[in-house]
């Protein structure tokens, strides 16, 4: 496993960071949080066309750049740091990855180039009203009449479910296997309802399917394997996104205590503040190590990658919310106000605790896949 980034990867990171500092300052994030659509199409276009981020990990033969999970995770780490409002996680990290792992060559050729160019915004719908992202929780059924599959049931907690033009989803086939399907948002029997997201930078929707025609991606018995790979990639990317957010909170808190004066002293000069700041650095650095290890384990094809990925999700999510709690505390009363930016990351941290499975569930998954 590699424990440092290459010069090219560091450069890639700084390009994204500069881009997001210019295109996603917190003032803009606040506007988008309160807006209807939830993202800025101009920034999305620039992110896709100028930076090529939507093409990042899609294979070159399908209009992508062919990079690995590590590069994708660098992008999500920076997006988590900037709290970018954009359908990147849903479209590139979730849907595109599912298509790459599940679809036939012909289907990939039909679906991936438009996702790679950013023309199509896609999402992956897995969880149902029971809120589970593991294959076992998927109950929605797909029936066949000849070549056409039809979907019946409800998907919930669908990321960017209102804006996605292409819905990839997981449903149970008649043979008991998991199937991954693609559905156009214009298909019959698709009813989309926005959910009130506590974190307004990450929009969720419920989607009801009533006898909706769908295309099965790949074979009728390959869904489990494809979803397992997809799930690991999205969890590793979420871990890196959370690590990026946690680091931003840590840095902002440090800047604040260095500026704030009470009792005639800078509050950063109090040992109790310094020790908390030291603990936050330790927590965030350990979280980054776990998140990077998850991405590297997937790129290396490690046998225990699922364990490492779940380890990262569980521990980074706990660090993220704990760092957010410390950040509010270090800001004092102002930290609890809506006008202070801390609350924005706090809510992302809170939502990320349970998105794609909570820490307890991931720790159990980690032990079941533990080989060390």
């Amino acid at each position: 496993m590699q424990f440092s980034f290459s010069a090219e990867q560091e450069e890639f990171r700084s390009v994204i960071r500069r881009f997001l500092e210019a295109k996603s300052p917190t003032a803009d994030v606040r506007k988008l949080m309160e807006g209807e659509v939830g993202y800025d199409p101009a920034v999305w276009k620039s992110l896709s066309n100028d930076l090529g981020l939507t093409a990042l990990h899609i294979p070159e033969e399908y209009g992508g750049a062919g990079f690995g999970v590590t590069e994708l995770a660098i992008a999500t780490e920076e997006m988590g740091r900037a709290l970018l409002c954009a359908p990147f996680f849903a479209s590139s990290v979730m849907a595109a990855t599912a298509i790459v792992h599940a679809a036939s060559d012909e289907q990939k050729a039909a679906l991936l180039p438009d996702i790679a160019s950013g023309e199509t915004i896609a999402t992956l719908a897995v969880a149902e009203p029971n809120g589970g992202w593991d294959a076992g929780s998927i109950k929605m059924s797909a029936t066949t009449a000849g070549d056409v599959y039809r979907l019946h049931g409800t998907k919930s907690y669908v990321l960017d479910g209102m804006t996605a033009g292409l819905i990839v989803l997981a449903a149970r086939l008649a043979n008991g296997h998991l199937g991954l399907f693609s559905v156009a948002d214009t298909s019959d029997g698709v009813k989309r309802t926005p959910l009130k997201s506590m974190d307004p930078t990450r929009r969720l929707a419920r989607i009801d399917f009533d006898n909706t025609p769908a295309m099965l991606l790949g074979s009728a018995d390959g869904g489990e394997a494809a979803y397992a790979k997809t799930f690991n990639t999205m969890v590793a990317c979420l871990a890196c996104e959370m690590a990026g957010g946690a680091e931003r909170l840590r840095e902002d808190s440090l800047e604040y205590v260095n500026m704030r004066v009470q009792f005639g002293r800078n509050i950063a000069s109090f040992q109790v503040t310094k020790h908390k700041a030291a603990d936050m650095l330790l927590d965030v650095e350990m979280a980054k190590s776990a998140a990077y290890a998850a991405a590297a384990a997937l790129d290396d094809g490690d046998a225990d990658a699922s364990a490492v990925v779940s380890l990262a999700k569980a521990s980074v999510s706990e660090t993220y919310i704990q760092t957010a709690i410390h950040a509010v505390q270090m800001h004092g009363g102002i930290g609890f106000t809506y006008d202070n930016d801390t609350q924005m990351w706090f809510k992302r941290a809170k939502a990320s605790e349970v998105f794609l499975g909570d820490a307890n569930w991931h720790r159990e998954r980690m032990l079941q896949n533990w080989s060390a």
Partner: protein
Amino acid sequence: MTDMTEQQVREEVRAFLKANWDPNLSLVAWRNILVDSGWGAPHYPKEWLGKGLPAAMSLVVDEEIREFGAVGAAKMGIRTLAGATILAHGSDLHKQTYLRGILTGQETWCQLFSEPGSGSDLAGAATRADFKDGKWIINGQKVWTTSAHHADFGLLLARTDWDAVKHKGLTYFIIDMRQPGIDVNQLKQMNGHASFNQVFITDAVIEEDMRVSELGEGWKVATTTLMHERRGADGARRYDAKIERPEQLYQEYNEEIDHQLAPYIWYPQRTGRVDLLIEHAKAEGRYEEPAIRQEIAKVLSMAKAAEWTARRAHAAQNLGKPPGPEGSIGKLAASHVARAANRVHTMIAGANAMLTGSDSWMDGTIAEILVSTPAISIAGGTDEIQRNIISERVLKMPKEMRTDTDRPFREVPRNQVG
């Protein structure tokens, strides 16, 4: 030479071992051959018994030596800190006199820094060194001195100027431990072991050419020693393992390990033994309990994240960055891991956690964990000191307001000892 790839290093070491390894030599004879070749300490400079390779490459060399079934240079104890400090600050005479004995294992070292009156506040050392008739006369008391009872030499921090401010009155020496003015007593710990010593120094003598630092500049040199000590405490340190083969060399090597390792025999237990958690839970029939599984997974995660953080720090170091405060993060992480592992071992043990020795599981190993982990958050710099270092040096937060650094040391309030 510094541009050698890992593959080239591995091949050269193997070729050297193939041509030279002979288990029928004595341990010292073999190590002299090894040290002469430069493969005993490849990270030392070429002119001083090494090959000038990066520190990480010496781990690669060790691995090759181990896989070959051969024996490497002596590494255990304070000797590696002595070697690093002498290389960084010692005179040519010091290097000439001591480096070979450090690597061959013929001479053992100890570190005489802490005192009963100055623990975390190491720079408050009050052992005195007075210059009389061309020699240094040493008087005072040191404590927590591992291996002092069989050490040949000590790294000594002593006060040479009482009118200078605290950090400017210390000087760094090499002291010969085999002299009449040195009296060593063992200290018994809460876990029953006696790894450390008190050292009483009465009119001990040091020749002027065994002074390592300039007068009053001892603190700077001590910082080098401490930095290496902290880097060793981040979980990356390995202890030599015995090799059970008949030849004489292996017998001598195994005896050396027993001898050197005696003070450290409980050290694995102070880390909390994360490696035993699953085995312990299975042995107690509790590995399927969801609450236990959650707690085990939390500790394993923390330990892995700490290991990966240490590896990131080492990777940065291999890219040529000087030893930095990243070592301090690792030490604090190790404390957290040990405390958490202790808690979970207790939870797994249940009532058995009330027993010790042969009445407890694994012939007392678990019981020893339970009463040994408090050491790790104190030894080599307490957690509180680590947090000060992290906040002040890494995060650049304001330094503590001090009342001890702006006046002659003789006017600074200090503990009354003895």
